């Protein structure tokens, strides 16, 4: 099938109105790399597709004076990973943005779309969670903020209410001596859906010997991407060594409740959680130490 209608509003208010008008049958789209195909393959029925790329606030990258980052929800991945400051200060975002699809997909796909599509295997969501990103939402009753770890509620489901639009993703300034990384496992080397993915964001003591704080998130092992607070807690205050890392990996494994499907078995996924959490922690440590 295909959508019946197309509109390209130029303001958030217009977009909200357009979304509201459909009584749930209208959908926003940014890159369209999920939704256009879902409609075509009869996985989703849409009356009007609301193209949000003409809304200035939804596209663009702002580096804020306090060191924080604001990403317009519809900003394509390619624009994100090409930004020199994003590269230097938020390398985990580059890890994610440069893995979504091939370059043809990255010219279009947005992180907002990745988040709002709310796939358990989405490759940016663990990174957004690990980085402590906040989703800024506009709707008929104004704006509200939701932490990304609370955003997804089930496979393909999230907190957005009819008429609501994701406007931007806000990231706090990376702490001193911090580092973050994202990785996924796929059977091929490109163009695949994650069997498991994981992100870590850690802060070390000034001498780099101790974990001060850590946020770890994993994907494709539960109905939504998971923030594993216990894995971060397992690291806080612990020395940077293999035992600490193994303890965090074990905590993440314990949190995973994967299923078996064509992309991987439950056992394989549990196993890979340990492998990937270990690996992203190592990269994050290297990055934190500069």
């Amino acid at each position, binding site marked *: 099938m295909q959508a019946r209608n197309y509109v390209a509003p130029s303001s958030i208010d217009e977009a909200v109105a357009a979304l509201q008008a459909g009584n749930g049958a209208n959908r926003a789209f940014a890159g369209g790399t999920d939704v256009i195909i879902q409609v075509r393959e009869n996985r989703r029925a849409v009356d009007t597709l609301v193209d949000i790329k003409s809304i200035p606030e939804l596209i663009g990258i702002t580096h804020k004076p306090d060191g924080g980052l604001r990403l317009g929800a519809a900003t394509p991945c390619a624009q994100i990973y090409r930004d020199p400051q994003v590269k230097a200060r938020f390398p985990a975002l580059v890890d994610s943005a440069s893995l979504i699809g091939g370059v043809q997909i990255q010219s279009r796909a947005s992180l907002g779309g990745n988040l709002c599509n709310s796939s358990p295997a989405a490759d940016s969501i663990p990174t957004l969670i690990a980085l402590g990103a906040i989703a800024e939402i506009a709707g008929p009753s104004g704006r509200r903020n939701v932490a990304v770890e609370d955003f997804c509620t089930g496979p393909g489901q999230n907190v957005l209410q009819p008429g609501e639009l994701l406007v931007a993703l806000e990231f706090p300034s990376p702490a001193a001596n911090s580092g973050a990384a994202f990785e996924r496992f796929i059977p091929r080397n490109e*163009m695949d859906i994650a069997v498991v993915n994981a992100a870590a964001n850690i802060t070390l003591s000034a001498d780099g010997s101790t974990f001060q704080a850590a946020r770890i998130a994993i994907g494709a092992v539960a109905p939504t991407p998971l923030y594993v607070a216990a894995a971060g807690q397992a690291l806080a205050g612990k020395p940077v060594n293999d035992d600490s890392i193994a303890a965090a990996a074990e905590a993440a494994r314990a949190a995973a409740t994967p299923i078996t499907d064509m992309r991987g078995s439950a056992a394989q996924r549990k196993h*890979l959680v340990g492998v990937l959490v270990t690996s992203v922690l190592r990269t994050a440590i290297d990055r934190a130490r500069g």
Partner: protein
Amino acid sequence: MVTKDRSSFKVIGTRPLRPDGIDKVTGRAQYGADIRLSGTLSGHILRSPHAHAVIKSIDTSKAEKLPGVKAVVTGADLVLPGKTLDELPDLSANVLAGRKALYRGHAIAAVAAINEQVAREATRLIEVDYEVLPVVLDVRESMQPGAPILHQAMRTRTPSGPGDAPSNVVAHTQVINGDIEAGWKDAVEIAEGDFSTSMVHQGYIEPHAATATWNSDGQVTIWSCTQGAFPARERTSTILGHPISKIKVIPTEIGGGFGGKIGVYLEPVTALLARKTGKPVKIQMDRDEVFEGTGPTPGTSIRAKLGATKDGKFVAFQADLAYENGAYGGSAANYATMCITAPYDIPNFHLDAFDVVVNKPRTQDYRAPSSPAAAFAMEQLIDELSEKLNIDPLKLRLMNAAHEGTRGPTGMPYKRIGHEEILEAAIDSPHYKSPLEGPNRGRGVASGFWFNVALRSSVNVSVQPDGTVNLIGGNTDLSGTRASLAMQLAETIGVAYEDVKPTVVDTDSVGYNDVTAGSRVTFATGIAVHEAGNKLIKEMTGRLAETWQVPVEDIEFEDGTFKTKDGAKSGTFKEIAQAVVGRGPGLTASGSVNAGFLQGGAFAHHIVDVEVNPDTGKVNILRYTAIQDVGTAVHPSYVEGQLQGGAVQGIGWALNEEYYYDEEGRMVNSSFLDYRIPTTLDVPMIDTILIEVPDPLHPFGVRGVGEPPIVPPLAAIANAVARATGVRQYQLPMSPRRILETTKDVV
């Protein structure tokens, strides 16, 4: 004609540009979906959501009432006069189901409408009442008593006559050579295993597409991206009961086939819809329809056992081979019995092969059909013996390799073949000589065999006023065969490659040609080209004799030049042609051959280095070399391309590709995303070594080169993985999941 001295070739062995190249790099070439006739209706097919079901009724009335819908057809429209739906032959029932849907994706009905959206919408309005039946998906389970029966009328063909009860086993074939019991007595080392491979698809990038018109006088024209316009015409004629002379099939450019575009799917359906509507009708498949509704290659189960003396001489081999034929009968396992022992001289063997139906799409050929799975078993057993006997795996193969005079796959002794030569080349190759170092790495080798399917070919050649030559053929060009045939004609008549203009035409415009498949075009059509070229020379010599006023016997033709024996008069082909054509009647000739069915033998040997990630189970291909006896490399670049493409398809088959089914028999990975054919990042450069042992059956020594390169990769990679991990792999694909399961017990 005697095989020419290799070094005397002028055109063969060079690397000219292909004649269809510019159209293909500029987007001008017309493939199946690019045909656009004015007033064309769009068709779409309704497919069974169930893998096994009785079709109790089909109600098309709602669909027919949808505005814009012009016609709906079902299997009932394929019932020929005097017959009933119960008697629908397999060929027809696979195109539009009869009483039963036998696999998920089985075509049930088709709609023609003013546009695609309406056609799709209409298929959803067709109401089918299914009685869902139990499914059987596994080849061994399907052979068991009590398995759900697909065809009540099917009786197993066995060496002792047909079976007496309904069965899913199409045929049991037995091949016995020597004295197997004596062989086992001589064997001191034995390797055995229970191997299995999954159903895989050819994965060509172009989905099937066809457009048909049906005129009021009964003249039918079909444009199709088929691998064989003539067989497509024949089958369409049979299915529709319409005379062959009234059907013209125009082959479009074709975006890959590898065997998968031999069968007919859309041709009869578009024709039927065109008849009903009086308008051109075009149908183009979606990618998931290609996976679920066309013909992949069988999954297999092979139990095999190989014995050798302590010196490494193979003395006994036994195998039980079961091949999934999909929903309807076929003969894949029968081929496997010919291929599995073909590379070696084994005095005693005993093979039992079973062709079996299961609730999966009717299988089709895929490059060297049946041989890769057979080699997956055989070449791993050899590897195991090489470890047990502590003999280098290449030397062990060389010691046992088949050669001229050895019993060949059809039971007849081989003529000249090159298995020994490629093994020697492998031993001498830079790849094999270089050490492989580092943890978790392993090197694997394997050989592979395929015949030349030869069959029938026809071409016409005609000389133009400027002395150039048109070469008219009927084989669709999948991989540069226009070039390889033009080169053979240029070689035959001694002109420059640029002076031959090859064209592929429709079924009305040239004599019969079998499909472009089985590595046959450069081989068999090449023979026809050579014959036509020689006839042309003969004709020209005759006419020249009159012009020059000398006896015919006094004129010689050599190196592209006609001359009198005394050398007094001479002229190049082009000069003479200009003169002769200028005056006399047009100069044309044709060549037609039936070069036999399974001919010759071509061998490939591959060497691969892998690294297996112990944490994730992922296999990384580090280095790859494909060696092959190509007979004579007509256009070496395109020959290399065949080796490289075949190797990479084999890598995909070995590592990730498979039809992944749920319990109800639904293929759940019917997209390029989840079917996972290799991308650029999954493979290294593929080194090639072309060995030329001319085939005595071909005037230029050509052997088919397209099929053998897909045979060794499965086993070569398995052998490499076994050496890297210490664990042998009996099941494909060797996906990360399976490697973790077998090496780390992650289950």
